[in-house]
């Protein structure tokens, strides 16, 4: 309903996600990742999630993997750029066989989400042709012949998220959410989903988002919740507000590589039940530094 106020706490927003849900993650690699939302999912001990990485992902899916939330995942690239070529918990989950993979090229993820957006069961794409994808995931990908000219194409099954989680700079109380930087795949991930959960740096009056409507990446009709979570993308960047924290990313990866990850979760996730407690567990100076570029 137009004008509905969907602002609620992060805890309430995430509580609607049931175990086993299909959850798409927005952002791109180290930009605009819904980190506070993934920490809350870990706190609520979600289990058996089918995670769709709408774009290359990093600490978001890795934290979910390390907290035991992930059963299956649509992935194209999981890394932390030059800070880490792979992510420790996700890698371990795949190697141990506890996480099942739908192996993709980004173009195939785009196709799967586009099919869901359009309400068609599959979509043909050029992405992935020549690769081993249909061999390992025949339930998701098939080589097909173009019915008109007979050329090969790759049929990608619709990938429909029950929920898409995104983190933005701004949103109004109804769920019109905006980036000022690059939206990456957030708009498509929101259009493909049944419901969208928005975390945002700041809830603003409607006229603020209405001043620049082309920046809006959500369509309020399917936004289920808006949670104001300052620094909600930290330690990844929120474009236009703060950079990623290189040191925190390296610390995270180091914790994940050893036996220290349970301690990391205890300190920064389970033992820090709110965003305020999380920020205290990291230290306020770090947040000021990623925002201003200097020690404050």
């Amino acid at each position, binding site marked *: 309903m137009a004008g509905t106020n969907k602002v609620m706490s992060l805890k309430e927003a995430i509580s609607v996600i049931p175990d086993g849900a299909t959850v798409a993650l927005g952002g791109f690699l180290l930009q605009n990742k819904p980190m506070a939302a993934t920490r809350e999912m870990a706190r609520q001990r979600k289990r058996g999630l089918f995670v769709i990485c709408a774009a290359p992902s990093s600490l978001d899916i890795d934290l979910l993997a390390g907290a035991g939330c992930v059963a299956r995942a649509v992935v194209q690239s999981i890394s932390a750029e030059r800070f880490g070529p792979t992510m420790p918990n996700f890698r371990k989950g795949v190697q141990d066989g506890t996480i099942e993979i739908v*192996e993709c090229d980004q173009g195939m993820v785009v196709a799967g989400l586009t099919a869901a957006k359009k309400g068609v069961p599959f979509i043909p794409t050029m*992405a*992935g042709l020549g690769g081993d994808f249909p061999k390992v995931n025949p339930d998701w990908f098939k080589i097909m012949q173009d019915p008109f000219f007979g050329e090969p194409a790759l049929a990608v099954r619709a990938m429909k998220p029950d929920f898409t989680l995104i983190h933005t700079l701004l949103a109004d109380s109804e769920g019109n959410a905006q980036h000022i930087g690059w939206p990456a795949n957030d708009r498509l991930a929101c259009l493909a989903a049944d419901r969208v959960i928005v975390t945002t740096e700041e809830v603003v009056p409607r006229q603020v988002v209405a001043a620049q409507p082309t920046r809006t990446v959500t369509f309020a009709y399917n936004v289920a919740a808006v949670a104001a979570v300052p620094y909600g993308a930290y330690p990844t960047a929120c474009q236009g507000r703060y950079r990623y924290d290189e040191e925190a990313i390296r610390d995270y990866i180091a914790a994940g590589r050893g036996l220290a990850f349970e301690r990391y979760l205890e300190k920064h996730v389970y033992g820090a039940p709110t965003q305020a407690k999380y920020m205290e567990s990291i230290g306020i100076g770090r947040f000021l530094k990623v925002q201003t570029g200097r020690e404050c």
Partner: protein
Amino acid sequence: METPAYTVSELMACVFSRDMQDGERGGIPGVRSEVPLASAGLAVRHHAPNATIFSPSGPVAAEQLVMTGTTTDYERTTGVASMIALDEIFDLIHRGTFDWWFAGGMQIDQYGNINLVGIGDWKRPKLRGPGTAGIASENFVGRILVWINEHSPRMFVKKVDFVSCAGHGPHDRKALGLRGGGPYLVVSPLAVLDFEKKSGRMRLRSVHPGVTVKQVQENTDFELIIPENVPTTPPPSDEEITILRKQVDPLGILREEELYG
């Protein structure tokens, strides 16, 4: 003329830059893309001012081809005249917009098949890699420029454990529906390689200064096509190094390694 000392990453950036022609449309990926970004930044300042360079977020102006931390940093999405969503950039790639695009790899075989998925059995890999990223889409661009960070028998393998991006064989590219030119240039810390047209097999084009042909073959798990005369990769020129360090990589990200020359 005395050549300045340089790192292998700087040399790799120069090699790729020299392959980029003025007026071409090319793309730098969003993941692990230090060398690609540097080479494009060098090319547009050195000899290709009219090249159109895309990152995953859209066309990037020359002044934004400066290394910050990562390719998709906010610096490359501010002050742009247009921005593209991730789904649309793949539309452009698939319909044949680009002359070249970059691909990285954790394994590459003699035909240029590239693997970014993992080592060992796919279901229970010995080592899970980052994933394919966008390189399976690149068989619809003119030339795939491949950068490999380590030249060893475990990277240059007889057969890749997973095909992320198809190379020149043993399959028939046309039958697979691949309309692009496929892997074109492979640059490693030891050498520059390309592919023989007839056989589709990898060929040694040049060895980097101080590297021998024997060394390259010993660090490659398959037999390379080795021409009678293998030249040395020209080291970075003074001009190239100056542009790289002053304008493209002021933070010295490419210099976080050993100096040569």
